[in-house]
């Protein structure tokens, strides 16, 4: 499934929908498949819980981390790095982790022309059907329209990342398949996959046999969960 995706892969969605965890997993899997990979943290609206937190892990695995110059410092200015333009211009696989909502997607808009010139992208809209205010397909698709306007790019697929944090069970995930399918249908988009913590992937596969399951490792944790 990953091999069908374009070289430039953009992850957008609501705050806390699980974009960062998905982006780190995708970057790691592209790397395991033998590709040269860069992960760009384009989040300039969120101070914590972001891709730049995983710089060490990514670099150990030979993945280039591209982050705003002041990410994870106390200088909360929305500065972007020129390095992203440079990497867009290469033939490397790049995963772009965008900030939440339309506010976060505004930074992506800055790169829309460069992305089109570089051959376009796949833009995955990550949804969590348990998130307040994106619990119905109508709500989730209305947020996507705001994100598309701000980013000046169009989503090419929806990803179901429905979960309830530490209360997640296989059933919790499977219950939101229909929601994700309906959200995708609002825009005539495919539902690319349902992201599932690896320990549940077998069980969820048997619950939703006709739908793609993408096993993920949970990297984004709270200080007391480490």
């Amino acid at each position, binding site marked *: 499934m990953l091999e069908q995706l374009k070289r430039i892969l953009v992850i957008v969605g609501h*705050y*806390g929908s699980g974009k960062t965890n998905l982006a780190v997993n995708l970057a790691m899997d592209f790397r395991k498949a033998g590709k040269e990979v860069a992960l760009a943290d384009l989040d300039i609206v*969120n*101070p*914590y*819980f972001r891709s730049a937190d995983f710089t060490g892990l990514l670099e150990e695995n030979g993945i280039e981390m591209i982050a705003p110059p002041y990410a994870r410092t*106390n200088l*909360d200015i929305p500065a972007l790095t020129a390095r992203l333009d440079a990497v867009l211009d290469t033939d490397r696989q790049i995963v772009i982790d965008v900030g939440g909502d339309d*506010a976060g997607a505004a930074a992506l808009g800055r790169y829309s022309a460069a992305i089109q010139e570089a051959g376009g992208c796949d833009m995955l809209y990550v949804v969590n059907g*348990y*998130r*307040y205010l994106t619990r119905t397909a109508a709500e989730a698709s209305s947020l996507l329209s705001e994100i598309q306007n701000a980013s000046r790019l169009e989503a090419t697929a929806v990803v179901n990342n429905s979960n*309830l*944090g*530490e*209360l997640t069970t296989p059933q919790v995930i499977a219950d939101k398949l229909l929601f994700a399918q309906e959200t995708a249908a609002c825009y005539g988009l495919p539902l690319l996959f349902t992201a599932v913590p690896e320990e549940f992937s077998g069980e969820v596969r048997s619950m939703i046999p006709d739908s793609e399951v993408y096993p993920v490792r949970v990297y984004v944790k*709270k*200080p*007391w*969960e*480490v």
Partner: protein
Amino acid sequence: MKGNEALAEAALQAGCHHFFGYPITPQTEVAAYMSKRMPKVGGTYLQAESEVAAINMVYGAASAGVRAMTSSSSPGISLKSEGISYLAGCDLPCLIVNVQRGGPGLGGIQPSQADYWQATRAPGHGDLHILVFAPSSIQEMVDMVFEAFELADTYRMPAMLFADGMLGQMMEPISFPEKQVKPFDKFSWAACGHQGKRKHNVINSLYLKPDELEQTVLERFKRYEIVKEKHTQWEEYLLEDAEYVVVAYGATSRIVRSAINTAREQGIKVGLIRPKTIWPYPTEAISKAADTAKAFLCVEMSMGQMLDDVRLAVNGKAPVAFFGHTGGIVPTPNEVLDEIRKLAGGDR
């Protein structure tokens, strides 16, 4: 939900339809959320020109008898302190949210608990207290927002939700309480129009005669005693047989709890007292634990501020150690475990 959004939604559901704020990391999502949702419930969202303006708008709205709130992070709370004092001096209910970050000065944007002294000792000038709730989960943030508004109205005093950047930014599953918000009749004191049915109500904190001012403050402090007696809240964890007691609140208490679980596996009899209100403070619970405990450890994301209250409560009955980080560094469970082991003699 994300902590900042959850507390904002809780305030809306608690009937707060007047929000006045100013952006600052790491609480900006509170204002952003309110700006989106408030028009849909027919309320007033106003981004003020400064924190000083925002708290004074709360002062005005609270005077008119409506539920009003503001939110900020540490440097912004300092700016609000004059207004908080006026609100307390006029016996006005409101909610102030502090999603703390590192200080002093502009400090940093990472989580911190270094505003404890400010919240409990001097949220503003003068003889005053405000209710201070210290949640440790997002569910508790939601529940405490409802409670804060209710107690603020009941005792006519400002309440603070005392969170930190970690709680504001993290995600947790929550549910909103399905309860009807009690309508408070503020007609007898609020400046909301007398309708020819009563004398003018005056909202004022200036007293021309010193004895009148003293009398007003004395009456207010009698009310504070009732609050202390009825509304001090804390949680005890594995305390029954504990030889060693850790005191921690907020996000830090979650880290401590994780360390305590590991210490228990290693045979160390350690428990936790977690203040859920830091004013009023659970002095008696700690004092009682000090009758049997061998030693205490206070853990905070500060240089040791709540430590003062722990020492006052222990009152020399047992040694009190401290461990903390400041400037936005979050302690790890392993660091806390090391401190617990040291407390237990290091021979376990």
